[in-house]
Every structure is written in structure tokens, then in C-alpha cells.
């Protein structure tokens, strides 16, 4: 049995993407779950709320908090479209390109936004204000063609309306979604996503015995797989 060494040299500074306050939130998020690994996605959102995207440093810090290897964090994080690996705009404009929306004219909306922003769908403007994506079904088919800006909804948008919304945001004005929710910046919405379910006091979170008075056995590990030893653990 050998003790696994961290790949980070001892004299290297510990990664510190998260402020002490966010670090405390990260601990609270991890405490929500019977197994802290479940906090992996929320913590990556937390990193995204600071850096605007998921940085290597951020992934290392998440690995350290959750006692995982950075590669394990990358493996999971790279699977999900809402976690961005490259700098993205302050406002992410997602136009649904799925069945109902395409049949109701979504391609024209995408085209108009591409022309207005001077970028292709899938890219970010040079000033870092807007990202544009042709998204998969946003579950607002009754509002086809539908669009989200940082995950707030806009229904039945015409090409002109879509451009007008982007122009308004560009001027720094407050824009309300069809449901009356103000559009947040991508960092703000990332933070909200990370901390979903933390509304009630943290003291109530965490371990609570079940009827049988048992929690999952430590050896069981997550799911059906043996736990991969993390830093400082015996392998």
C-alpha cells in the first residue's frame, strides 16, 4: 500500500479561484449530498460564476475540495454543454434549433443574430459581451421559435425582436423575459445554478438518518463503481 502523492509540487500555491465566501458555499453545497462527489457539477458552476468559464485552475480547486483527481473533474465536467471550457460572453443567447422551432422559423432568427453580432452560432464576440448558440430543445415549444438569454425565456421571437433584445442588452438596459424575470449576466446565473437548493439554512443540510438509521456504506462508493482513490488516500 503506497500513499498517493499529489501531482502539485509542495511549494506550488494552492489553487484559489474561489473566494473564502464562495469556498464556504462550496462546502455547504457538498454537504447537501450523502456523497460529496454529487456536488461536482454545482461546484463547476461556482467556478464558472467567478471566471466566466471553467478554468483548469478551477477544476483543480474543485478536485481538491471533493477529494478527487483533477482528471476526474475534467472527465465529468467536459460532458455537459452548460459548463463552458472557453471564455464566453456576458450574455449567452441560445436560440432553439429543434423540431418545432426550426419549423416555425428558428433558422432565420439565428441568421439575423449572426449578422447582427458578426459571429457564427457557437462563437463569442471579440468584446466578450455576447455568445450565440443554436441550442437543443429548450422545452418551450409552445413559444416556438424560442430563445433564451442566460436561461431566461423569450417566446415567439421574430428575427427583428431577437436583434432588438440583444441591442437592448448591449446598451446595458434591463431586459425582462416573457415571464417577467430580469436577464442576469452569465456569471450571476452560474452562481444561481450552483447554489440552487441552498435557500434554507445550511445547518439543516447534510447528514440525516433515514428510517433504517443507516447511511450508504463508505466502501460502497458512488453507484456501482469502486471509489477511485483521491489525493492523500491509500490506493
Amino acid at each position, binding site marked *: 500500500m503506497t500513499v498517493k502523492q499529489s501531482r502539485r509540487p509542495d511549494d506550488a500555491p494552492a489553487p484559489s479561484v474561489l473566494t473564502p465566501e464562495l469556498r464556504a458555499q462550496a462546502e455547504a453545497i457538498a454537504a*447537501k449530498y*450523502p*456523497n460529496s*462527489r*454529487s456536488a461536482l457539477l*454545482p461546484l463547476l458552476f461556482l467556478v464558472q460564476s467567478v471566471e466566466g468559464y471553467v478554468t483548469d485552475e478551477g477544476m483543480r480547486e474543485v478536485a481538491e475540495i471533493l477529494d478527487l483527481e483533477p482528471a476526474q473533474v475534467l*472527465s*465529468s*465536467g*467536459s*460532458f*455537459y*454543454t*452548460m459548463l*463552458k471550457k*472557453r471564455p*464566453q460572453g456576458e450574455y449567452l443567447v441560445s436560440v432553439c*434549433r*429543434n*423540431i*418545432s422551432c*426550426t*419549423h*416555425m422559423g*428558428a*433558422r*432565420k432568427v*439565428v*441568421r439575423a443574430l*449572426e449578422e447582427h453580432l458578426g459571429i*457564427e*452560432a*457557437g*462563437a*463569442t464576440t471579440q468584446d466578450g459581451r455576447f455568445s*450565440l*448558440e*443554436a441550442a*437543443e430543445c429548450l*422545452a*418551450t*415549444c*409552445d413559444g*416556438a421559435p424560442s430563445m433564451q438569454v442566460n*436561461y*431566461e425565456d423569450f417566446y415567439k421571437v421574430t428575427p427583428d425582436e431577437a436583434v432588438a433584445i440583444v441591442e437592448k442588452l448591449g446598451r446595458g438596459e434591463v431586459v425582462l423575459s416573457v*415571464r417577467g424575470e430580469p436577464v442576469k449576466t452569465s456569471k450571476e446565473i452560474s452562481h444561481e*445554478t450552483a447554489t*440552487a*437548493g441552498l*435557500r*434554507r439554512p445550511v445547518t439543516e443540510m447534510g447528514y440525516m438518518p*433515514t*428510517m433504517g438509521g*443507516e447511511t*450508504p456504506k463508505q466502501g*460502497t462508493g*458512488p*453507484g*456501482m463503481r469502486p471509489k477511485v482513490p483521491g489525493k492523500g488516500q491509500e490506493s
Partner: protein
Amino acid sequence: MAATETRIVTQRLREFPQDSWTLKRYLDSDGYRAARQVVTEVTPDETIALAKDSGLRGRGGAGFPTGLKWSFVPKDVFPKYVVINHDEGEPGTFKDRELAEMDPHQLIEGITIAAWANQASKAFIYCRGEFALGSRRMDAAIAEAYERGFLGKGIFGSKFDLDIILHRGAGAYICGEESALLDSLEGYRGQPRLRPPFPAVKGLYGQPTVINNTETVSTLPHIVNNGVDWFKKIGTEKSPGTKMMSVSGHVNAPANYEVPLGTSLADILELAGGMRDGRPVKAIIPGGASAPLLTDTNIPMDFEALKEAGTMLGSGAIVFMDDTTCMVRNALVTAEFFAHESCGKCTPCREGTWWKVRILERLEHGEGRQEDMDLLLDICNGMDGRSFCPLGDASAWAVRSNVKLFREEFQAHVDAGRCPFDDEHEQLVGARAGGVGLGEAGIGDQPAAGIWPDADGGA
């Protein structure tokens, strides 16, 4: 007789759209009575029997009997978990979203009943990442329920503890597949697990886990309040109750309509205000993008009748398409969706979805070849039944039915060397979902998603 809705789960949100999501409104309309009664007066076994007797079937897509699913959970293994599949992503579906945004307390009450029946003291809501408003409302509702003692330690003054943990996804359709959802909830890539063991025996963290859909559990309080006999009088013998139908496409009034199972598709079209501009129906997706197409509205919408017609009710997402619709484009958009969402775990799905997009893309661009239709069918046959999870199968069903039902339209694209409908495809630059996973929306040089630089060297 004009078609009408039978509103059960959507009753409150239709009647009080201004505040249906608040605790006050919920309590004013008898809210939490069912959960209180079940937890304080009914045994877990009786609750499972209630679900079984009601004949309630899962509303997420598979239509599996809910009570039967619960009965598979071993009685003597603890802890157990209830997980709510709120990762609604099947193209055309928008029912769970509305339920969570407009009536989150109904969902919480349903979860309480499911948790009591299965003696699970922790329940998780796996909420789709893109659902910002729904998450906000559920978060607030959960906090309110804790304050009132409806959640937490000793709920409703009983000895039963229940925690509900709201968890957000991060953008992956595959996580709607229940075993992939569990992997995602555990912090892994959302890839499906080999079954057996089934989640009821070994699910979340290797413990017995019940996974139910949002609409399914939202129905539970009404069954408790009104009784099994009331519920069984609605709908058909084998598919009792109502179903929310998400109607979209070329109709005048796209929306969710709650109707008894077995209501005819024609009636649902009437509810949705008929086809826009009075145009004829060309094709109908009866149960989400995964379901093979129909061309006739003269069919009852229930699990059995649609299965007999070679398609499925799925999640109840109905997309009506009129005669201006290009079916090659429809097939392409569908294929692109599955290619984007394929998790990459198994070869037939990973490769098959990708190749179908390439072939359909050249067909829509007028560069299709005579053999392409057969090639598509061949790829579909290579995927159907050979994929690891239903995503690959569904992708095959969807594209196959487009090719089979509208083959002459595919042929017309090949013959004319262009799309006979319009030139929308020529305006496309990056209007594709593009690459999978991390990496979209970066600054600087990027692959032009949607334009295949080596298209000529392909297939």
C-alpha cells in the same frame, strides 16, 4: 361536441395563473391534505397498493406502472432514495417545466407521498440545468415547505423524516434516461448503466432508488384525495387518468392540454385551435422526437393504441406539421439533435447518429445521392436494438419513419439537386448545435460548426 380538457394536475395553474405557485394558493385549495393523510394515517404498503390499484403509469415516456415500480424496491435495505426526473428534454415536451414553474407545491406533495410509500427519507429533484425559473420556484417552495414542517424532521408531526434536495443538471438530454441521470447525480458523466441491476434494487449510491417523472408524482395527491375509483373512471382501462399533451408546431394555439388518455388526436388538434391558416396536416409527431411519425389524426392517444400504430405516446409531445414542411429538414433537425445528445458510450449510437447527420445534410443541400435513402435505413437498422440505451433506438425510429413515409420527398431532393421548399439551408452558417460538451462559445478560432470542411471526402 366540442373537445374539452379534463384538468387535474393543471387545474390550479389554469384557474389561478397569477399566483398558482405560491404556498398560500396551494393551501387555500386543500394543499398538503393528501400528504398529511398518507403520512399520518396510511401505511407505506397501503400507499403502494393505492398506486397499484389506480393503474397510474409513468408520464415520462415509458408508461411503466408506477405502483409496480415501487413494489420492486426491497423493504429491508436502507437508505432508499426517491429521485424525480425533471430533466425534461424530449423535443416537443414542455409539460414538466410548466408544472414546476406554476405548481411546485403539488410536486412536493407528490414527492412526499412517493417517499412515504417507499420509506425514503431523502428525495432528489434532478432539475434540468436550463430551467432557471422553475428551479427558482421549486427552491422557494421547498424552503416554504420546510418552514411549515411539511419537510424536514418528523413531517406533519409524524416520526418520518424527509429531505428534498434540489439538484441542477448542466445540459445533457441523455440524463433524462434514468440510469444516466443517476450517474450524473453522482457527479459522473451522464452515461447509462447496464441493467440489471435495476435502480429499484441498486440505484443512487448503490442503494434502492425510485425514479419518477414530475407529472407522475404530481398526479399522486389527486389520487389520494379523490380515490382510486375516481381516477380509473378517467381515461381508458389500461391507461387510466389524464395526460398533459404538449402541443406545438403549425397549430393556432400551441400549449399544454390535459386530456383523458384515449382522447383522439383530432380532438387535441381542435383544442389547439386547429392548423394555422387552415392548412392540411402533413405529419404528426405523437410522442416526442423519438416517436415515429403519424399522418392521420384519427387515433386515440393512449399507450396501447399508439403502440399498435407502430409509434408511441412517449412524453405526450405532439408536433403538428403542415404541408409547407420539408421532411428532409425535419429528419435532419431530429438527427442533429440525437447526434448532439449521443453520450458516446456505445458505437452504434455514437457513429450512427453522426453519419445520419452527414447524409441528411447533403440531402438537404441538394447533394444527395440516389443510394442515400437506403443508406439511411441501413444505418437505422444497425442502431435499432443494438444500442446500449433507448437514445440510439429512438434516433433510428425517428429517422426511419421520416424516410419510409416521405421517401418521394427525399427522392425529389436528389432529383432536383436542391430543397424543393425553400433555400433556407443556403443561408445557414453556424446554425448547428455543433460540438458536444465543453467548448462552445469560445473566443477566437473555432471550427465552423455546421459546415463540414471535408464533406466531399466523407461517405
